[in-house]
């Protein structure tokens, strides 16, 4: 245990190997355009955007190509200057084919991004900022892809006092947020006034884990004089980047079961999201690329890249090169990320990293055979929200989905994977829980 001032943290959690050294020192580099960029219309939680370009139409990089469908939706922008090849189905990480806009780049174009009407944090009203965030297509870049403007629009009667800028980046291998804090500190600081003004919160705290001391120093130095911004350094622990854990760690407040951070007067925004707001809103531009980490033992040219949205994984992997025994590719980190089933899946706004594993890491499946639960209780000590994964696992095996939800708070599980990580019997607990959660949601929808 560390002594103060690093004593702020949450109870339970785990310590997976960090594996960040390969890429944390590598500066962000611009990634080339793929022969065809595939921009899915659904890259966020909510309703898909509505395409507003036609086949054969020429588009400019950063131009809006799809408009939001209602409030729970965001705009999409062209990742490249080129021509719309077609609008058709493309595979998505959700396991479905989703409508997407296929854009073929012009080889000779200067690729100068389009700009729109600028928004100034000092003069704009909160409503204008929220509308501008939606128009810029900004979603939570930490992986959940929740539309940021929905988060900023506080429910009636709710007030927030603290804005947390989440730079914890507790997932192994991922270093994209780390590099954003080092290289785009000014953008982060430019984004904070927008968020404070839109939500009416009084102060902002940038939360960084102690394995990124250099980023903390840069962020501290970048705070403009007179701004109500501070930087907190937290001890390294997984899943500190989960917003409920971060709020507990920094403020000692507990988000109620089924509640939102705003219920305890807090808002949590990922540091990369904040940087994009600070960079895009003053130019009136839309998000058409994002910073992500390409790493893992299966990848040759590891690094942090600024990748155009819609770059197919096949092109991305072929560009950076991969080991011949690459067996598994994840979007996101190895704890919460998703293994992909097709390399035609494109990079979306929610992609925090692309991690490649070889046969050496994925190992021999036969050796990892599942054994019966002996109720050792390791998972109880790992669960950051104090559930009983052991009991839930036994119930899941007997398909007692509703009982799991009613008596054991299944729906509060945010699938961090800590229980599965520590389970000595190799029981795929989170996978069980995800099946059960889906069954409960389906039953609820059918009952309505």
């Amino acid at each position, binding site marked *: 245990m560390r002594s103060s001032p690093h004593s702020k943290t949450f109870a339970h959690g785990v310590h997976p190997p960090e594996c960040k050294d390969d890429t944390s020192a590598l500066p962000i580099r611009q990634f080339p355009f793929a022969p065809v960029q595939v921009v899915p219309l659904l890259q966020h939680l909510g309703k898909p955007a509505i395409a507003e370009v036609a086949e054969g139409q020429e588009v400019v990089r950063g131009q809006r190509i799809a408009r939001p469908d209602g409030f729970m939706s965001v705009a999409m922008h062209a990742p490249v200057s080129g021509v719309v090849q077609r609008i058709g189905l493309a595979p998505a990480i959700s396991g479905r084919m989703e409508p997407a806009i296929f854009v073929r780049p012009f080889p000779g174009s200067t690729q100068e991004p389009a700009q729109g009407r600028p928004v100034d944090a000092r003069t704009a009203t909160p409503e204008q900022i929220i509308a501008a965030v939606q128009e810029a297509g900004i979603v939570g870049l930490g992986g959940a892809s929740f539309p940021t403007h929905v988060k900023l629009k506080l429910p009636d009667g709710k007030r927030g006092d603290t804005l947390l800028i989440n730079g914890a980046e507790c997932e192994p291998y991922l270093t994209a947020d780390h590099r954003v804090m080092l290289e785009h500190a000014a953008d982060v600081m430019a984004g904070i006034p927008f968020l404070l003004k839109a939500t009416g919160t009084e102060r902002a705290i940038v939360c960084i884990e102690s394995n990124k001391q250099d980023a903390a120093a840069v962020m501290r130095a970048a705070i403009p004089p007179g701004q109500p911004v501070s930087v907190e350094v937290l001890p390294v622990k997984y899943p500190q980047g989960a917003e409920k854990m971060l709020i507990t760690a920094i403020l000692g407040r507990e988000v109620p079961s089924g509640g939102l951070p705003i219920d305890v007067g807090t808002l949590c925004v990922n540091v990369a999201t904040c940087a994009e707001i600070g960079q895009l809103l003053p130019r009136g531009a839309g998000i058409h690329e994002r910073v992500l980490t390409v790493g893992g033992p299966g990848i040759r040219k590891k690094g942090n890249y600024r990748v155009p949205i819609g770059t197919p994984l096949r092109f991305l992997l072929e560009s950076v090169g991969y080991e011949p025994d690459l*067996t598994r590719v994840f979007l996101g980190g190895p704890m919460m990320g998703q293994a992909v089933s097709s*390399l035609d899946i494109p990079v979306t706004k929610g992609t925090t990293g692309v991690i490649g594993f070889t046969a050496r890491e994925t190992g021999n499946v036969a050796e990892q055979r599942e054994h019966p639960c002996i109720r050792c209780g390791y998972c109880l000590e790992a669960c950051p929200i104090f559930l009983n994964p052991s009991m839930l696992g036994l119930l899941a095996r007997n398909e007692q989905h509703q009982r799991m939800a009613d008596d054991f708070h299944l729906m509060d599980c945010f699938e961090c994977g800590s229980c599965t990580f520590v389970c000595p019997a190799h029981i795929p607990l989170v996978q069980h829980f995800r099946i059960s959660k889906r069954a409960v949601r389906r039953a609820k929808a059918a009952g309505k």
Partner: protein
Amino acid sequence: MLFLTAIAAIGGLAVVLATLVAVANKKLYVAEDPRIDAVEEMLPHANCGACGFPGCRPFAEAVVTGKAKPGKCTVSSDEGRATIASFLGVDVGAEEKRVARLACAGGDNVARDRASYEGLASCSAAALVAGGGKGCFWGCLGLADCERACTFDAIVMDGQRLPVVDEQKCTACGDCVVACPKDLFSVHEASHRLWVACKSQEAGDGILEDCQVGCTACGRCAMDAPGLITMRGNLPVVDYQKNHQTKTPIQRCPTGAIVWLDADGPQKGAAAKKIIRKGARKDAPT
């Protein structure tokens, strides 16, 4: 002396309560039709819910009160239904036989995998990992969730990892419809012989890369049977309200995605290729 008091007190209490229970039994007696018990005894006790009632007892009540016909119970044998009908002196109520149908024909021999899924051997688990390893995003994952869900052993996985429904055993209870994460099962009248065995919403020959018997949305079946078949979401939709006892639509189908189901299994049109391919093809690392 004290223990005698105790015995007397408890004994007295027992007598009083017993009297109360006896009186209540007489006063509050609910007259229930004895035929409900008898009918329930004649039902198969599967409690499957295929009749639309929560279980055999509620169904027995409905039959006795005349709200349902005995024929609604698809699990009973013909004699069983007739016995109940004659016992109650009602009409059997000929219920048309309904069965579960699978809208996929992409077994291992014709469809390829795009990734190899390692994990819980269950379709619902595989479907959560980016849709599973099947090349076609709509296709059957072949991990037998439906086979496990079926109470009546009516679903058996064939050698190509594709479930086959035994129409004799199927009671149309709908458990497989719920179990399938890809929503490939639906309950249909057994007399519906024209069947679209594909759910792919992709238009064009792209689907053939993943599955040789997929629907390419060419629309020939709709052209050959105007009115009966319409193309919706790149798939033919059969209007079973119309006269559907015709094999015309299957004749020109290039892949055999639309079939005619009869006792020997699915019949394909003459134009459908004879598709022979052994084993799954793998070419993408994941």
